[in-house]
């Protein structure tokens, strides 16, 4: 994202109490963190809360960042990922309760996304169509297991390299690659099944 030296200088200024430097960091990273949170949590409200929590944690632990141990963006992503895991664990009970009220979406014969697919008979506008497809893929992404979801988000949506992802997720690089492959494949299966139902 930015030069290592520039970021290190920004961090030093923040630690020294420079509010403008902190604002610069917030302006530079809020979009990235918000997108990770949005794709992982699935809703805009949760993403806003999580992004705010990430920055609060960053602000409190900024002095613990060591530029020699890795890039600032990796450090930020690690914090984000840890908070997302915590959030996932906290809301696990809610999701289990919700799933009892809805169709078992993980089964092969389930129709998890078909109800959200709009009627294809009407000729849609290209922009609307694109938005609908994006929403469908976003919904399918939420059906992946958290391990696969975070791996594909960091790789395919945030363009992080495998080494950075391995550092952020604290797993070997081979595991990262395997998770990305399985995540992509699982997502494709979910979407193919969905569109087959619609067609």
């Amino acid at each position, binding site marked *: 994202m930015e030069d290592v030296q520039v970021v290190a200088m920004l961090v030093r200024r923040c630690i020294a109490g420079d509010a403008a430097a902190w*604002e610069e960091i917030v302006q530079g990273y809020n979009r990235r963190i918000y997108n990770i949170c949005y794709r992982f949590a699935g809703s805009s409200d949760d993403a806003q809360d999580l992004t*705010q929590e990430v920055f609060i944690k960053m602000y409190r632990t900024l002095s613990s960042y060591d530029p020699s141990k890795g890039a600032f963006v990796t450090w930020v992503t690690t914090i984000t990922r840890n908070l997302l895991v915590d959030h996932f664990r906290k809301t696990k009970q809610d999701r289990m309760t919700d799933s009892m009220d809805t169709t078992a979406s993980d089964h092969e014969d389930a129709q998890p996304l078909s109800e959200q697919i709009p009627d294809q008979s009407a000729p849609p506008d290209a922009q609307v169509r694109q938005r609908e497809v994006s929403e469908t893929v976003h919904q399918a992404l939420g059906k992946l297991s958290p391990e696969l979801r975070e791996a594909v988000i960091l790789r395919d949506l945030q363009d992080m390299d495998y080494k950075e992802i391995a550092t952020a997720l604290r797993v070997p690089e081979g595991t990262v690659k395997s998770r990305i492959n399985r995540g992509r494949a*699982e997502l494709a299966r979910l979407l193919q099944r969905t569109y087959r139902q619609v067609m």
Partner: protein
Amino acid sequence: MPDRTSNGMQCNEFDLLLSDALDGVLSGSGLDRFQAHARTCKTCGPLLEEAEAGRQWLKGLTEVEPPASLVPNILASTTGVDTQRLRTTVRAPQPRVSWWEHVQASFLEPTWALVRQPRFAMSFGMAFFALSVSLTMAGVNIHDVMSISLRPSAIRHAYYSTQAKVVRYVDNVRAVYTMQAALREIKRNMSPAEPGPAKQKEHKNDTTQQPEQKQERNYSQTGEKLILAGTPVGPSDFDRILDPSNPDLPVVSVTTDRRFV
């Protein structure tokens, strides 16, 4: 994933190379072996297709725009102030303001804004009502309050009269009166016995009484007869005085000699 070998490549190795192949970094003989394994392996072939499809789906996802309120909220929750707004304020040219305007802006306007709130007005009304009810119950009349003189002598007089009223009131309280009586009784019981008449007789010859007697003598002179009021009388004199048949009862007339200077 089953660990099968096809065209000199195991499925585990295929899985590891899958990401590189999709990223386009696999080349040469490695790519040939990879493609050959994908063509022949019934598990890895579909996996390659699905992973490629999934990757394409994900590439179609565009970045979402964060809400406009996100950054101000983050700054407010971390540094406690909206630094962007602060900086804008600082950068704006500041017109010169007088001290009165400064006081108005920093004190009066916030106070007035607080006072204008309905809940404050309600609280003020309730407090006024409670105060007026309390004063009425205490017997305070507004006309009396308005006619109070604020001269120092009047204030002093009011203070002493109020103090006297309070002392009288406290003394007349039944509990206080009873307690004071009980204390007096206890003190009387605890104090030593008073000196008897024998002791008084001893004082008769005490020369220390002489000047006092002289003084009393001076204050007890009449024109006709000198009566020594301080001179003790004997039992025979009492009998004579108390005898109803005695016509010559002494009439004691006391005049006080006053000296006018």
